[in-house]
């Protein structure tokens, strides 16, 4: 069943025709041209599809796009209107990612963390990104980059 939804996507008002069955992830990637959220497991486990919905990290694969009508979605693309954020810069400076598949999700989860808790402990960092699976780094470089950004 078709529906038209309106949302604020990375600061811009957007309107889009969707099927009720389409997930937010599918609509972002296939209809709104936003490619940073990835379809990893498609079951909420891996965190590659993470976006911020009204400021909170959520799994866009477990949300139907019709649910976000009238709401605010931020993806990785929305963080860097004025160049990389200090958090992103900390990752770049340390080459903290390898393949990059998990990167958008990790950055968004860490962005949420640093917003509510600007000076987290290592344990708090680990907890914040525990739902973002990374198969390259062993996590150490990710945790270091987030802690470094929090010290700046």
């Amino acid at each position: 069943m078709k529906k038209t939804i309106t949302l604020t996507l990375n600061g811009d008002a957007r309107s889009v025709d969707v099927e009720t069955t389409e997930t937010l992830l599918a609509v972002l990637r296939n209809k709104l041209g936003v490619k940073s959220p990835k379809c990893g497991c498609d079951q909420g486990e891996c965190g590659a599809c993470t976006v911020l919905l009204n400021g909170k990290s959520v799994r866009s694969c477990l949300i139907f796009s019709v649910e976000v009508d009238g709401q605010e979605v931020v993806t990785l693309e929305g963080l860097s209107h004025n160049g990389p954020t200090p958090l992103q810069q900390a990752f770049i400076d340390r080459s903290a990612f390898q393949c990059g598949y998990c990167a958008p999700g990790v950055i968004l989860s860490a962005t949420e963390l640093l917003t509510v808790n600007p000076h987290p402990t290592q344990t708090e960092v680990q907890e914040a990104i525990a739902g973002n699976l990374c198969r390259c780094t062993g996590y150490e470089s990710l945790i270091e980059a987030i802690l470094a950004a929090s010290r700046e």
Partner: protein
Amino acid sequence: MAVAREFEYFRPETLEHSISLLGEYGENARVLAGGTDMALKIKQGVETPKAVVDIKGISELERLESTDNGLHLGALVTFSQVMASGLVAANFPLLRDAAATVGSVGIRNRATLVGSLCSAVPSLDIGPALLVHEAVVLTRSAGGTRKTGINKWFTGPKQCALEPGELVTGIVVPLPPGKAGGCYVKRGRYAGKDPAQAGVGILAMEKNDYRVAFCAVGPVAKRAPSIETCLHGQELTDPLIKAAQALVPQEISPITDIRASKAYRTLIIKVMLERGLKTAVSRLKGKPSAHGAIWI
């Protein structure tokens, strides 16, 4: 990406409207809260509703407040909100500790406690905490409202006392009668982000009164009455713990599944019972033992 079967989407703004939709569509309607279970089931074709009734527009279901009967948690209250609530931290730390073991931030930001109760999987982490607090589930349908004690809520694996056309409006969690110390012990394959292989919730109260509940070691999350009777009125000592552990097999009926074997669950739950009891009692006595769930 998985594609769901067609459905009509409703976002009512009042309880009355949501209940009339549930009545109108009957068997073909499904309630959608955080969607962490339901969206997946629809995508996988396990659920094929004609009408999806999203309750997130009903603001009265967002209540998280203290009432004369205890803590009221509306149907839209998420695990993240429970973790962040000062009210919960001050009076129901066991609820907060158990909530913190559920999935990861991105799940807890969306998943509701009521959704977890309605999915009613045997491993639900919030089950033991709500059982030992003797929570009450509030439901409403066209026929009126109903209250169900949590001990009667879980009727089988993934089955609960929710009736057709009914919506859960919230949960009421009574304050324990006096001082209490709580502990949730979770065994997962790794610390976090995994359903429990076994779980134990304990509430130790004054006059050596104890409440004990299990999850993931039987078809439903449940209290352990014979263990509570054995402990009742007695100081917690090693021989008493041994006696309680000996009763564990008659209180549980674990299965072997992808996460753990029946033998393993039977063994580990006894260890968890001991650690949970000792921690709950030390918290009752105000020892500065750190709060938080115990992962083993």
